């Protein structure tokens, strides 16, 4: 049996939130709240609350990136400074820690920022190939709910969305 993806468009957040609540209350057979994707022109914290715990892990990458930055900074600078041994040091250390700390701090931020950006691009699935289910009205003022259902549930799902005042329903084969 083939699967279909449906995009139901709503006029603002209130009807969309009502619809998600109804799905949560198991009023749409075969679809749970975990299967829902909500598309909206702005971020709405209530949506996050209703959809439940969907963790974001970018900060872990940020931490690793920053850690790498500070370590790399130290070894990068030290390896450059180590080649200064041929130079008379005049009693000064070959690897000066106080000034290296300043530069390691900059490296920490540099790598922290870049890792955060790469993690964002990866984890938000920006480059991922997706279906054609999309509407330009989603960047104006409408809110979309995407669900994936079996072919035999199509009629039911359409009716469910229509009952919840969907402005438009689009579908594609998954």
């Amino acid at each position, binding site marked *: 049996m083939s699967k279909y993806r449906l995009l139901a468009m709503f006029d603002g*957040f209130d009807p969309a939130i009502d619809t998600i609540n109804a799905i949560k209350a198991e009023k749409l057979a075969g679809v749970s709240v975990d299967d829902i994707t909500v598309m909206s022109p702005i971020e709405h*914290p209530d949506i*996050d609350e209703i959809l439940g715990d*969907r963790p*974001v892990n970018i900060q872990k990458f940020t931490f690793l990136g920053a850690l790498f930055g500070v370590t790399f900074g130290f070894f990068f600078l030290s390896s450059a400074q180590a*080649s200064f041994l041929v130079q008379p040091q005049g009693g000064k250390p070959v690897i000066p820690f106080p*000034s290296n700390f300043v530069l390691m701090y900059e490296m920490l*931020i540099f790598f922290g920022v870049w890792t955060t950006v790469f993690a*964002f691009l990866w984890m*938000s699935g920006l480059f991922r190939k997706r279906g054609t289910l999309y509407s330009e009205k989603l960047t104006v003022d409408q809110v979309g709910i995407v669900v994936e259902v079996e072919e035999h549930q199509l009629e039911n799902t359409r009716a469910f969305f229509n009952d919840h005042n969907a402005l438009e329903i689009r579908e594609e084969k998954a």
Partner: protein
Amino acid sequence: MAQVIQDKIIDENLKWSQINQDVIRSMQAPGKAYWITFAVCVAMFLTAVAAEIYQYKVGMGAAGLNNPHMWDMYIATFVFWIGMSHAGTLLSAILHIIHAQWRKPIYRFAEAMTTFSLMTAGFFPMIHLGRVWNLYWVLPYVSDRGIWPNFRSPLVWDAFAISTYLSASALFLVIGMIPDLAILRDHTKGWRKKFYGILALGWRGDDRQWRNFRKTYMLMACFLIPLAISVHSIVSSDFAMSIMPGWHVTTFPPYFVAGALYSGCAAIMTLFICLRYFFHMEEYMTKNIMEKTTKLTFAIAMVWTYLNLIEFASTWYGHNIYDKEVLISKATGPYAVVFWTMIICGSVVPFTLCFQKLRRHMPTMFVVSLLLQLGMYVERWMIVAPTLSQAHQPHQWDVLWAPVVQWAIVFGSFGWFALLFLVFVKLFPSVSMYEVKELTFHLQHEAEEEKWLADQEKHATPEGAREKPVTGRPGLEGA
């Protein structure tokens, strides 16, 4: 009621489609005034290029730079542009973290300003260097070239700090623009549709993307704040870590940071008024937002004034004869006119910001913002020139007024900055559409809540008899 309307940041009844249309309209075919300004900026920039070529051929003597005046307007301008870049960080990152809603319509161009002023600042160490072709010597890669970069020197720290700041602030600008680029992709035609389609990176605004977006934006803001402070502290170390009279001051790092925020805020005021009038953004760049910006500017101006006084006092009571002589010379010597211009523009003119009528009068604010920037520019020059004019060796005492080559390059840098900004406002949205939508949504729900509370009081119904309306709070980023 009139007071409530006056206190609104923007009109919450703005239609979201209207917001899209207004911003896209501001990016469409430029008018005559735009092209004239563009031509002037190109001319300024080309003048600087010509001056630099001349300086390259003749040597740094053409700019009047020699011992003891090895630094002059180039370094002062470098510090000025670095300072200007702090505006974006302040408005975007700091105000984002503390959830100041009023920043939303104006932070985008401030972020762009950050990136462009860093791109402008970056030129000056190269120009000042003289031997531009040896610039790569500052890079600390492990080498067998017999070059030993001095890692104890703040000049090397500058290279690290500024390149980190430039890349981080450019990323902050680009990442923050992605949802807006998706709007442009969906609502423009022709080459623009393709262009924004690529830049939007496939943004669809689904819940996963929004969650990750908010977290990323917050994390980057958290990085940018200490970064900005470190950058200007390091720039101040260029001076403070030397033993030159007037430079070896412990308050220099906070003094530089305050000065940077100050000039950045003044620049935001100028650009705010330009965008408001030339791009008809009156509905987004409201007088209330201007008021908040001016209040912030005033607060920073007072911090800067205080740090100035502290510096004067510690020099005066420190009884270091050389430091004291430089201070006296600043106020009474050949550079006295510049010094008092700095004091008047930097510490006296800001008091105009105390008056509400003036704060809401845009032509006055435009003039004030330019005066503040003039004050902050000459402040940077007053740091550099007097110390070099009157250092430890009396036989070296000298007065330098910058030759035309320096002036041409400095003016050209303003042309370059304006050029970048002019291109930006026509290619990218200078107002963040999605954040303005969040703001209106938030304000609408606040108004509903207030109305509900007023209704409750009026009817004095038993508690719990009425259901409180659901109030979403977008914009209170929960990352």
